[in-house]
């Protein structure tokens, strides 16, 4: 069952199409990634989903409801963690969660939520004194305190150190384990690859692809890559294999690229001809490579 449904979404700012015909649907219980470079239209897309923006065209439904017509009900069912939203400096972590709990009819127990998010000891700490990771955890907790069916988490780990980033990832997986559907907006491919069941790649306001991380990677030409040392007579044998798309040799070292099943196919062929590979290394394309292949430019950037 699809929890979020986007059909031909359009949104234009000052004559420039920020979102240009975006369609995808998010299924119950999955972690759905919306990835793209900064400015690709990710945030605008999720702002239309959360009812902050009125689309210029197309339809959005959240659990079957229109985010603007059924504003109140959608706000009860949807928890949103927004990019660049902070709390007043002197508001304490526990107070913030208690306050947000009062916004909902049947909220979660905010004290238990605070413990669960590892903020029990920070209950009386002002927002300004929390670390980046603690702020992000509090921010996720605020999005979940209304016990939503769907949570949108926008650029969750931007600016976090690797340790805090990993802790946040664990937390997201724990949230999903409770049955909350999650839409994760990110420009970190590592994050999307690690967490998401399916991913929509957004480029210049359009959907470049929707697939599983595996599926996206498999689309990369020569997604599988291996290098090894082997006698020269192996080359024609390997070139004939359907899984092999490329082979280059320098000295006794060859690099073979190809599609799924490359490793197995190469090894068995070599074994059948009593060729012994040495110094074998196998590599696989990453979501970064897939993103580059799909959009023509890498997702990474200098300003994070």
């Amino acid at each position, binding site marked *: 069952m699809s929890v979020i449904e986007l059909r031909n979404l359009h949104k234009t700012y000052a004559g420039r199409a920020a979102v240009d015909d975006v369609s995808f649907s998010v299924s119950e219980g999955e972690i759905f990634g919306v990835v793209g470079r900064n400015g690709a239209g990710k945030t605008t897309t999720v702002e239309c989903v*959360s*009812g*902050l923006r009125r689309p210029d065209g197309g339809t959005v439904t959240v659990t079957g409801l229109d985010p603007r017509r059924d504003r*109140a009900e959608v*706000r*009860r069912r*949807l928890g*949103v963690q*927004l990019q*660049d*939203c*902070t*709390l*007043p400096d*002197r*508001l304490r972590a526990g*107070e913030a969660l*208690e*306050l*947000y709990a*009062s*916004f*909902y*009819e*049947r*909220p*979660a*127990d905010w004290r*238990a*939520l605070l*413990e*669960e*998010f*590892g903020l029990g000891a920070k209950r009386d700490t002002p927002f300004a004194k929390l670390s980046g990771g603690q702020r992000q955890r509090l921010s996720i907790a*605020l999005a*979940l305190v*209304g*016990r939503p069916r769907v949570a949108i988490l926008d650029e969750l780990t931007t600016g976090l150190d690797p340790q805090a980033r990993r802790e946040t990832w*664990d*937390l997201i997986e*724990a949230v999903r*384990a*409770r*049955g*909350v559907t999650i839409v994760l907006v990110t420009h970190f491919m590592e994050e999307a690859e690690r967490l998401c069941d399916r991913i929509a790649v957004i480029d210049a306001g359009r959907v470049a692809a929707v697939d599983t991380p595996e599926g996206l990677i498999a689309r990369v030409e020569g997604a599988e890559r291996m290098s090894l040392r082997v006698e020269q007579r192996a080359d024609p044998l390997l070139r004939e294999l359907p899984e092999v798309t490329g082979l280059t040799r320098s000295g006794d070292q060859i690099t073979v690229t190809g599609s799924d099943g490359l490793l197995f196919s190469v090894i068995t062929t070599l074994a059948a001809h009593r060729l012994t590979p040495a110094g074998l290394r196998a590599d696989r394309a990453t979501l970064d490579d897939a993103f580059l292949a799909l959009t023509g430019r890498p997702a990474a950037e200098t300003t994070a």
Partner: protein
Amino acid sequence: MTSTTGPAVTRPARRRTSAPLRLTVAEARLYLREPAVLFFTIILPLGLALVLGNFLPGMREPDPLMNGQRAVDTQLPVMMITLAAMTSAFTIVPGVLALYRERGVLRRMSVTPVPPALVLAVQLLLNVTISLLATLLMIAAVVLAFDSRPPAAPLWFAVSFLAGVVALFAIGLLLAAVVPGSRAAGGAGSVVMFPLLFLAGMWIPREHMPDGLRVASDISPGGAFGQALRDAWAGAAPQPLHLAVLLGWTLVAGLLAARLFRWE
């Protein structure tokens, strides 16, 4: 982190505190955690009234231009009440709202079932309450320190107070709507506040103003507010002109603020 499954720990039978009450408590706590704010809205006006009333020459002499009133009877305390209310309306409220807008506090709330307009309402309520408290303390202070009489027409005093703070806070909301950020809010508040305090009669009592200046004072929000309070304090009904001026400022500033206010 515990490994709970199922929706986060439910405790449904619990009595819930309502959002407006919870938000009021939170904003009030934040207000009290900024000691400088209480200093400027309560202690400074009160202290100025006591120091000026005690040490400025002539403040406790009957002034023929004021129908024989002493400055400490109505002029001084009403100017300090005006200072307190304008500080709240023109610097505190726009500063807080601009900061909340800048830091996404309002935007964050707009994705919850509670509209961010509630923050606005709570801020106004809180700051009007502080202005009321400053006013009551000011009355008590001049009665005790200078043997002044308390307001002789308390109902008119209350009406004038209400009309005045509503007008001042409407202007404050307009400021909050047009300032680009919290840093600009403080400056903009002062730029608006000092001329209006001057027109209200802070430095030249209205009785001592030349006619042209007094007309400007009559139609200024501070001048109308101050004179209405002083009339009621002395026991008379405020002039309809002054109540009309306050209503006019409320309508103009309020409607403009409603049109121009941005939540993000």
